[in-house]
């Protein structure tokens, strides 16, 4: 089992100064690890669970940092710190949903060091997996968290497919709700994914959380202007108020007109292996008033078909009420 140690196994460190250089290193080597803020990576290394031969540290790649206008939206470099995302005036004024979500990540110190890209592609927090157990996600044949005897209070209530781990990225749901696109580069060129397609569930690939394959780099996040200035709602439920991952969170972008909901994008996270966009709920509430009745109906629909595990059935009403409040528009 994993025992955290002071010393990490040796690896070869590369510190490229451009994306092309980084991609070149990734293409030339096997068993590589891309280091962004490094906050999660060090635990993996010290636990001896991830043992890369080559680490590519992106801190010197300036083209991956910064927030700039792109069309009617914004383009955010994957290495932009969460603190900069939170503090950026364009993000705050036009896409406050992302600022709200990023502001909830961990602690100020961690947000200073942590990056948007690192937050998005962080691995799941399932402690069986993180503890070095040979589960499905680690290449084995068992999900240790999915049995009646497992400690699975924080695990998935929907979207399980052998693995019951959840996505823990606070910013992921917000970017799904904003209709963001992920720009991924590899030696073969650039690919663009809708945020909701960027995250991969275990039914598709049980060993990955995102579409990123070895040799891929998430370079930028593009947020289109479609939802700029919409009514945003972000709420996360955690065991403690800071430095914790969401038990469940909701992110909503809603445009209202004449007292009714004209259009909406809503995503929940912390309840499934990927952020879940609630398209049925979006369809349901279109044309309805943004009140508690609509919220209750939305919450019921959002959680229909949820299959809680032995210790996490509380997540069903939790998610239901988060969606209800998001549609209603207040926490009261």
């Amino acid at each position, binding site marked *: 089992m994993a025992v955290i140690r002071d010393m990490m196994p040796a690896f070869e460190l590369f510190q490229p100064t451009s994306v092309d250089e980084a991609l070149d290193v990734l293409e030339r080597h096997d068993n590589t690890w891309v280091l962004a803020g490094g906050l999660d990576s060090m635990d993996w290394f010290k636990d001896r669970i991830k043992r890369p031969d080559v680490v590519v540290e992106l801190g010197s790649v300036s083209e991956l940092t910064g927030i700039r206008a792109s069309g009617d939206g914004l383009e955010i470099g994957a290495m932009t710190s969460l603190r900069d995302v939170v503090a950026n005036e364009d993000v705050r004024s036009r896409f406050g949903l992302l600022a709200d979500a990023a502001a909830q990540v961990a602690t100020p110190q961690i947000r200073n060091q942590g990056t948007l890209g690192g937050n998005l592609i962080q691995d799941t927090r399932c402690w069986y997996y993180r503890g070095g157990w040979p589960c499905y996600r680690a290449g084995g*044949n068992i999900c240790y968290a999915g049995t009646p*005897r497992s400690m699975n209070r924080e695990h998935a209530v929907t979207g399980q*497919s052998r693995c019951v781990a959840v996505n823990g990225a606070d910013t992921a749901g917000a970017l799904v709700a904003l209709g963001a696109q992920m720009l991924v580069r590899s030696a073969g060129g650039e690919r663009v994914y809708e945020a909701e397609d960027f995250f991969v569930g275990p039914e598709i690939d049980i060993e990955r959380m995102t579409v990123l394959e070895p040799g891929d780099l998430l370079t930028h996040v593009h947020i289109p202007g479609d939802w700029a200035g919409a009514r945003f709602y972000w709420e996360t439920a955690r065991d403690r108020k800071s430095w914790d991952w969401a038990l469940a969170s909701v992110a909503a972008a809603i445009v209202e007109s004449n007292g009714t909901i004209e259009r909406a994008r809503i995503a929940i996270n912390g309840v499934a292996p990927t952020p879940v966009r609630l398209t049925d709920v979006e369809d349901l509430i279109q044309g309805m008033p943004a009140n508690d009745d609509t919220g209750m109906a939305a919450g019921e629909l959002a959680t229909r078909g949820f299959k809680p595990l032995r210790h996490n059935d509380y997540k069903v009403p939790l998610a239901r009420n988060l969606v209800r409040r998001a549609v209603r528009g207040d926490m009261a």
Partner: protein
Amino acid sequence: MEILRTAPNPWGQEVLVGVAWDLLWAAAIAGFVFVVGHHLYVWIMAPKAPKTAPEPAQEVPERVERHSQASRTFHWLMAATMLTLLVTAFFPVIGVQFAWVTIHWIAGIVLTLLIIWHIIHASTKQDFWSVWTGAKEIGQAFQAAGKFLRRQPAKEERSGKYPLDQRAYHNAVTLVSLGVIVTGILMMVGVDTWFWASNPYFLSDSTWGLVFVLHGLCGVVLVTMVIAHVYFAIRPEKRWMTRSMIKGWITREEYLEHYDPDLWKLGTEPAGAELAGGSASSADPDGVVPA
């Protein structure tokens, strides 16, 4: 090349977790090497067997039924199911990502039901042992191998309804299919289905590993076998067999050229016993279709 994958279990013991997917490529390459090698052998080196003139036999009709509707339906359903299983198992391994798990286990259940039906059908309606390889067929195999090594024409012995190569393939595919089915059913215990919740502690870590290894080994062997099967199905000199698996019949000339009427007797076998042609005692009353 890596053959097996291992991982430490929660108690620090190194246990098997499955086959390494290098074996998939090895199986695919083996299949294509066989295809290319056989094609070149037939094209360049194989001795040309003298074509035996059909013996006059007026009682043989223009069309002889080789596969009943039931057998053909089973064959094509099994083929579709097997391809579904191979695609859902191995396409994700080679990088084609999609939600494969549910499709895979449902196809596995369909295959299991088909095999059960086939066993019952073969036991009750057909001569069960006619397509199996016995001591006589093994002797024939040695003779054929000897002729192959001496580069002598292998013709002359016309077969019963199922020639030696088909019997051998049937035996092998039966063994391997039963391997994937038995291990696959065990693996279903670890998956949530509509009928039960997963129970990963049904077997120990090491036993699960063995089950996954056997399942993977049988799976990659099936890749080679399917490649070989499809290759023979499309070879020009075998197309009459493929046609018979589609339409059900062979011509009178094909019957007389390829089969020994003493080993595949038409018109005296129990109804529906269309697999029975391989035994010298069998014959087929339904083995005659109107031209």
